[in-house]
């Protein structure tokens, strides 16, 4: 894991309620780097997050909302977050329901901006 990517994950993982964060290839949903709590499947998180982002991005494009930058899916038992880091990466985070989404979002967007060309 490159230092830069690793440092970003470390910052994100310090947000309360965070169960893990990772860099994912946006196109194929393959993990690039990860920092996850035990029991969290990085491959599953990466694949599902990338697929979800692809789907909602398609809808956003179709309704004229433009390119998606950040996605959050809240569920009964936690939250999945994804920030797009163009051209081809996603920063993905999995958190429990106590997470401060605003803070997580700031860290994730900062991470995404840091790797932008």
């Amino acid at each position, binding site marked *: 894991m490159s230092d830069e990517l690793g440092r970003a994950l470390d910052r994100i993982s310090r947000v309360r309620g965070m169960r893990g964060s990772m860099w994912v290839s946006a196109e194929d949903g393959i993990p690039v780097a990860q920092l996850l709590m035990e029991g969290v499947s990085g491959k599953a998180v990466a694949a*599902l997050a990338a697929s*979800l982002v692809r789907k*909602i*991005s398609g*809808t*956003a494009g179709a309704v*004229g*909302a433009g*390119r998606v930058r950040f996605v959050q*899916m809240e569920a009964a038992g936690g939250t999945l977050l994804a920030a797009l880091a163009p051209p081809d990466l996603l920063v993905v985070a999995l958190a429990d329901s106590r997470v401060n989404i605003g803070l997580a979002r700031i860290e994730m967007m900062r991470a995404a901006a840091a790797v932008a060309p």
Partner: protein
Amino acid sequence: MAEDIRSLTAALARDPSSLVYAELAEALRRRGQRDEALRIALHGLARHPQHVHGHDVLARIHADLGDLDRALLAWSKVLELWPGHPGALKGVAFVRFRQGDVVAAAAALEQVLALDPTDAAARRALETVRRGAGAVGAPAALPVAPAPAEAQPALEAGEAGAQERPAVFSGFDRATADILLLDERGLVLAGGLAGADGADVSELAAAGLAGVSGEAKRTGEYLSLGAWRTLVAEAETANLVVAPAGEGALLLVRRDRSMPVGLALRFAERARGTASAWLEGQGA
């Protein structure tokens, strides 16, 4: 319509081997009698297995019933019998778009335009599909297709305009331009969505959202997050909030970027309450 169905039924009764079965099935489909339409179409095709129009009608019935795989199969049969059949190509585009395969949807529409560059509706549909494909993760480099033109039957499948839909969200800001209620098969129930050019894109949005809902459900299950409650997408010009709105229904709210996400969520929550109450009133 009822008169048409009566006369077509009588014609078919007089000559059961007649090709009029396809017209009857189509009339029944348009009237919403899909099971009866399916029965008539299958019966007719058993007698006329090479009847292009019959397969086309069958595909539309399957699409209305939400059986996309069978619809695709029927439209593929049409294309086998009549390569380049524009209705079938549009049908394939419709199914592929609903399945989230924007590349295949665009390819089918490009074939339509290659055959008839004056098909304006196909061109509009292609532009919409490409906008959907332009997002991260989706293939960005779709080939540039030919020129302009007009109507696009298959992508419309459920052509009611926003003005014909139940006014469930009256009282909400942009009730028929930014709030859409659909079912899990991707069929519009109420509200409406306008595209950047003002055109109604409700059907396309609903078709795409059916896939999003399934993906969110799968994600919640696989990651042991439980049932999903909301999905928010912050995009360049607008924020989208998607949420389940009662048994089998889904709500999409689009809000301008100037509205904070938290406020958009509250707005969506209000709309969801309204939608749920309306659905309960419908016995849904």
